[in-house]
């Protein structure tokens, strides 16, 4: 098995991303990321989607559940993305859908971040049998097919966003844990950590003050990519009818389009486009961030 290096920790998520080192990554975020076309494009996409998620209901011209036009009307001035089979406005539904996607992806990321950072820090900092046990557990979790696990959990427990977030979150952390562990091992024996230890600082403080800042940039990139993946997973689960039936999601809209591909292309085009632009924005940001670092 390839040894658990930084590179192989990324193997599943995105082996092509170069891991940034901690050197002045705040400045890097402000200047170097935004100087890149990919960084600006990514940030624009992400900002638009966030704004829509926050203010979508205010921006929407119609109630997405109300019948406001003819059945299966093509895009027009009153309905820029057309209407669905029941005559409901697709544009309004797309605006409402952003909230669901971001809610799920953010929830999953928070869980994965908490679990992954904790496990990786403990394993990397303490080493020995703790490292061994935690990494075996991480490998076990890494092979669980999370998409199918989420399907089973939702099928058995009934549809709902909470169980979707929980199953995806609890199966998404291994990549982060392996990454954090690798980063911590790389700096654990450097002088500044040794000095902190010699001064008698407690382990928890060393981890927070000295190790976490070094790991942060890598976490940001990995988390960005994870966020994009989870957005796609959430959309796919929604497409399979496993989302919350009372909440509008882009995946659910795409599933409803499946029956009308021959007569109403707009039903399939716009929800999918919304997902793609959102995921692309997140991926572009992560990409810009890591390549800005690589040039330095």
């Amino acid at each position: 098995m390839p040894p658990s290096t930084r590179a192989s920790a990324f193997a599943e998520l995105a082996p092509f991303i170069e891991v940034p080192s901690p050197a002045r990554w705040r400045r890097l975020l402000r200047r170097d990321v935004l100087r890149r076309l990919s960084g600006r494009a990514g940030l624009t996409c992400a900002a638009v989607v966030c704004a829509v998620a926050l203010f979508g209901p205010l921006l929407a011209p119609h109630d997405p559940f109300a019948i406001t036009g003819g059945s299966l009307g093509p895009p027009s001035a009153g309905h820029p993305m057309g209407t669905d089979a029941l005559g409901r406005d697709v544009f309004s539904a797309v605006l409402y859908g952003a909230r669901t996607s971001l809610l799920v992806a953010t929830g999953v990321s928070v869980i994965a971040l908490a679990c992954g950072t904790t496990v990786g820090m403990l394993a990397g900092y303490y080493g020995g049998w703790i490292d061994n046990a935690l990494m075996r557990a991480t490998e076990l979790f890494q092979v669980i097919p999370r998409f199918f696990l989420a399907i089973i959990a939702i099928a058995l427990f009934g549809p709902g966003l909470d169980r979707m977030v929980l199953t995806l979150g609890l199966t998404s952390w291994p990549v982060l844990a392996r990454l954090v562990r690798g980063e911590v091992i790389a700096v654990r024996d450097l002088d500044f950590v040794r000095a902190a230890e010699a001064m008698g600082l407690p382990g928890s403080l060393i981890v927070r003050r000295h190790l976490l800042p070094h790991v942060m940039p890598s976490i940001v990139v990995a988390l960005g990519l994870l966020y994009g993946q989870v957005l796609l997973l959430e959309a796919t689960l929604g497409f399979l009818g496993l989302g919350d039936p009372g909440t509008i999601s882009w995946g659910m809209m795409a599933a409803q389009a499946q029956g009308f591909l021959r007569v109403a292309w707009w039903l399939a085009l716009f929800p999918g486009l919304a997902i793609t632009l959102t995921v692309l924005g997140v991926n572009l940001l992560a990409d810009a961030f890591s390549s800005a670092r690589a040039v330095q």
Partner: protein
Amino acid sequence: MHTVNRRFILGRLLQVVPTMTVILLISFLLIHLAPGDAVFTVAGEHGDAAYYAFMRHRFGLDQPLPRQFLTYLGRVVNGDLGFSYVYGRGTLGVILERVPATLLLTGTALAIAVVVAIPLGAVAAARPHGAQDVGISAFALALYSTPAFWVGQLAIIGLSLRLGLFPVQGMTSAGSGAAGWPHAWDVARHLALPAMVLAAQEVAVLVRIMRSAMLDELPRDHVRTARAKGFSAMQALVRHALPRALLPIVTIIGARVGHLIAGAAVVEIIFGWPGMGRLLIASLQSRDAPILLGLFLVVSLTVVLANLLSDLVYAAIDPRIRVR
């Protein structure tokens, strides 16, 4: 080719046991934590009292939990994944029937992806940040950000419905009783579009891995030596850098088998391809929990074995890998 360290192989094989045990434990816990009587989960919701009494006894549901888990383990090891009332027979049989179609789809998609992605990645790496590289990398990132069902729906709308290039649904033409070569041609025509749609996701990942692996290899001594000895840049790239850049590809293909099967499920649903994905959605609709759990186990085992296989292949072709 050298002999792979025997301890490495043995150790790696033994890892499969705890991994599968944990996966079985998760599926066992899900059965018992789910609201409602566990017997509905293993036997479906459409039986009568006598049948449930029989199944309860058969799965040992009247015994304490740890004992039940052992019974469950024993059953699964013997290939008994439960009974589907909807299909009226054992779950494993129903699932295995669907494997060939899914295997044909995923295998074809993977072949397409490898054939497309390796040259693209190599071309992109030949001149980093050149026009070709920027184009190929942007294309790969865009594909990586696209949900499979959207690509599938757009492909159906554009290529099948508008242009009539491909059949819209299914694995064979309706009512076609063809056999032999005409049958194979019919299946191939139906296979082409879903396989390309499924391949798109893999192309996105493989291109970028290939590119970064090539960028790692190109500055190395053996490539520079080849150049110094008078090989052209192209020859050095193809004959000296490319073979070693293929190593990460092996790992990634192994690590992404789970994604590939999940993608196949979606593509099958969109294109009406009669594999495990169609079975999945049908079982979701009929609330056929035994089939769903069986699918989870079969997919998990496939993922575990694929990881094992890719590790072994990697160890066999990369002499640097030893026991850790």
